[in-house]
């Protein structure tokens, strides 16, 4: 469903971070991209999410070429199809957990009741319900991450991108995250995880590993 063809991306003229990349991700697949930091994993995720434009090449999702969409439309595509779990969680500290989770839905102008139903749903799915009115800055790292995951799932996207999801977590919490990952896979979402955390390297439910060092 995600097709990457001859993808190149360079931030400076001479140095190409991603060069002639060709990958295909199938629907419902869980793929882990392994590689050191600075190897271009995050950039690839940005390109798939339409946050960045490639220097050349194409990213095709569901037959739609998203790499050439104008900003307005790539945002719409991202809103409807993609949930991102960031390394730094990227929550807004001054807002409560629930408000943070609902942020992606605000431009849709939905009814308050529907918003509440959807927030309840993801909050209970990711066990953050008990903190729903708490401000994000008062949460622990694990809770913050669960909030971030809940936010990525609120619009019920087909594709979940996770960028170094366990970088700021201890081992216990990382294992908890892997459980969550397993659960999400059962909902037949396509999941792409970019990480250098060895905890991910020996998982039986991962469909494919891609090494990004070369």
């Amino acid at each position, binding site marked *: 469903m995600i097709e990457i063809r001859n993808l190149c991306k360079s931030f400076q003229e001479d140095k190409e971070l991603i060069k002639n990349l060709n990958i295909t991700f199938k629907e419902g697949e869980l793929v882990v991209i392994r590689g050191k930091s600075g190897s271009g994993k995050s950039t690839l995720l940005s390109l798939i999410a339409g946050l960045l*434009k*490639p*220097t*050349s090449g194409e990213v095709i999702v569901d037959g739609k070429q998203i*790499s*050439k*969409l*104008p*900003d*307005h*439309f790539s945002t719409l595509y991202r809103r409807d199809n993609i949930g991102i779990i960031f390394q730094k969680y990227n929550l807004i500290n001054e807002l409560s957990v629930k408000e943070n989770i609902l942020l992606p839905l605000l431009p849709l102008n939905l009814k308050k009741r529907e918003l509440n139903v959807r927030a309840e749903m993801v909050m209970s799915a990711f066990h953050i319900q008990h903190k729903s009115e708490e401000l994000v800055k008062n949460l622990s790292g694990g809770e913050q991450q669960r909030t971030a995951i809940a936010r990525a799932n609120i619009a019920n996207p087909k594709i979940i991108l996770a960028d170094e999801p366990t970088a700021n977590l201890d081992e216990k919490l990382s294992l908890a995250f892997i459980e969550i990952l397993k659960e999400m896979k059962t909902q037949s979402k396509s999941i792409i995880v970019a990480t250098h955390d060895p905890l991910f390297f020996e998982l039986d439910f991962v469909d494919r590993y891609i090494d990004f060092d070369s």
Partner: protein
Amino acid sequence: MTPEVLTLFILNALFVIFATVAFILSLRITLYYDKQSTTPVQYRLEKQSYLSATIIKYIFSIKIPLFIFFIFTLEKISLILPGAMCSAGVVNATDYGLYLLVLKLLNLYLFAYWILLNSQDMKSETQPYIKIKFQLFMALYILLVTEIIVESLMFFSIDIKDVVDCCGVVFSVSDNSYMAEIIGAPIFVQVSLFYTLFLVMILAYIKKLKRIFSILNVLFVFVSLATLIGFFGTYIYEMPTHHCPFCFLAHEYNYIGYLLYIFLFVGTFYGASLALLQMTQKEEYFYYRVSMLFNCAYLLSVSAYVLLYYFKNSLWL
């Protein structure tokens, strides 16, 4: 120099400054915009197109209430001008007045059309109108600047010592000006033209003939204005000799003029823009319906004045 005029100048100055920014950006977009390209220039142009669109939307949304304020200002100035009883006197005090009004109306229609074009454009990923809309804006910019220059010229050249004609003179039948020619045409012909046009419009609406419906709407604007001055106006004033398209904007007639003009504007605008845009069946029906609704409201309200007069006095003017 009145505070009202000064306010108009200030807002006009802001419009010119920001419209110029939008104009330069539009020029660059029309020249260099290329959907296939992936250069940084292209991405910058994309972003700038949002800025231009924001500026244009802003100008339009201010221009609508500003038009009403402009009429207010004309009425205020008519207090200072000896001989002017209402805005018509001010409009005719200088050579620019009439052109200015026409320009202002034209610009309102075009700006509204631009907004529609933009929203249609943003609906499709291919952005089919992106170049057309900015080319249109460049033309619109020239019109806008002309309008503002003419407006400034008008306010500067109003001489408060000159005696001007009031609307009774400007719109009188005895004169041999173009106004007189419009009003002078047999009223029966005009009014029957007005109603026939509306009937044909209903036919076009039922048959969903897009082009014809739009053209009819454009014609409807002119015929409506002519009959409003020549025929319906006299019933609103209940005076057979009072032909003036401004006086019923005043308080004495419950500001009814604003309502009439809004009906006419919305109705004909939606009607006329039908043929100019590609849209889905559902949107088309919506436009048809809005257009018919407002045109109908206009027709009914002007006709109501005539009928009311007849019921009250049981005679025609």
